[in-house]
């Protein structure tokens, strides 16, 4: 067992874990933060996306012990009390989900896209940047609309195209 300590959604947490414990297992099983989902478990689908030190990563392809000292944000850390994060509100408003399984990862990726590309990413950018998130229900159309609307509502300054 190895002791690991990190900050998750603003709270300091630590636990003794086996080194093979994945970050997503640590979040779900040790911290009972079950909003982060395990879809494919092979780093394809993106249902497990969280932010580690501000960067979107797949929590099924990172060890908890690699996050020693890191700042982790999960879907549970986005809302401000009862007030949804603008990106969550946009997914609700634009019907950006059906079964909802991929939604936590989609929203964490969407927030990351806006943080990197500025508040008004165009449709092509959104579609390209959602490359690592798979949805089997919606056909993506409303997800793309939701990301655009959520981005506009996030109040992040527009940026010159980064790519």
């Amino acid at each position, binding site marked *: 067992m190895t002791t690991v300590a990190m900050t998750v959604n603003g709270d300091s947490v630590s636990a003794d874990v086996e080194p*093979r414990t994945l970050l997503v297992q640590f979040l779900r099983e040790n911290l009972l933060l079950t909003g982060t989902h395990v879809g494919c*478990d*092979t780093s394809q689908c*993106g249902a497990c996306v969280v932010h580690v030190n501000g960067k*979107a*990563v797949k929590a099924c392809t990172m*060890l908890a012990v690699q996050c020693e000292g890191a700042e982790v944000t999960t879907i549970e850390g986005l809302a401000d009390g009862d007030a949804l994060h603008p990106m969550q509100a946009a997914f609700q408003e634009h019907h950006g989900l059906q079964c909802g399984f991929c939604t936590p990862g989609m929203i964490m*990726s969407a927030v990351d896209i806006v943080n990197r590309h500025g508040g008004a990413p165009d449709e092509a950018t959104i579609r390209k940047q959602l490359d*690592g998130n798979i949805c089997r229900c919606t056909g993506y159309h409303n997800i793309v609309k939701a990301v655009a609307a959520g981005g506009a509502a996030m109040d992040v300054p527009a940026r010159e195209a980064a790519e």
Partner: protein
Amino acid sequence: MYDFAFHRPASIRKAASLAADEDAKLLAGGQTLLPTMKQRLAAPEALIDLSGIEGLTGIAMKGRTLHVGAMSRHAEVAESPVVREAIPALAALAGGIGDPHVRNLGTLGGSIANNDPAADYPAACLGLGATIATNKRRIPADDFFTGMFETALQDGEIITKVLFPVPRRAGYAKFANPASRYALVGVFVSKRSRQVRVAVTGAGPGVFRATDMEEALSKRFAARSLDGVSVPAGDLNDDIHASADYRAHLVGVMAKRAVDAA
């Protein structure tokens, strides 16, 4: 995955002594190693995390050579103003690896040490005539990639950085497998003074130089120079994703696109 001991050394020297054990593996970004361990295709007894070592990161120009630290994440290389200025084709290649989440963790050193036959970075290293610096020596890319998942690295040898000579022109084009996003075929071309290099990934059992194409492009660096020049299909991969003939055709198409992009 099977359990293992976890080490996070603070120095290369310590990491190298831990890595001398052949049952230990170096952990860089983990984007290939961890999935491989989950599938139990690899079961190292110890992982040596390189993320705590200073000196393995950083991107800088030194003279006419671009130095990229081995632990540079793909996203860092893709977004680096230094790389974009010096070798835009390298920044574009890094920005096309995997997906955004993989690019936030995966590293240059990890990619070339693994030498997946369909990975992008080996094509850039070979196509630019890079030099791979380790804790022990400097290895020209021509001698580094020795076969499928095989490199010239020895036990306990750790890549510290890659030195890319800045070319006059360079371009990369890949036909990505739509599921894995690995290169079904990727071609990196570069021109530096008189020397032209054409490196092909994804098509064969390992990255290789297409010497007939290099010769044709040496006469005139234009897509049209490649008309009628091909690579023999006999040496190429033939699997459920693409036949060898199709891959040979794609090498020609991607090479022309790479030249046009350069």
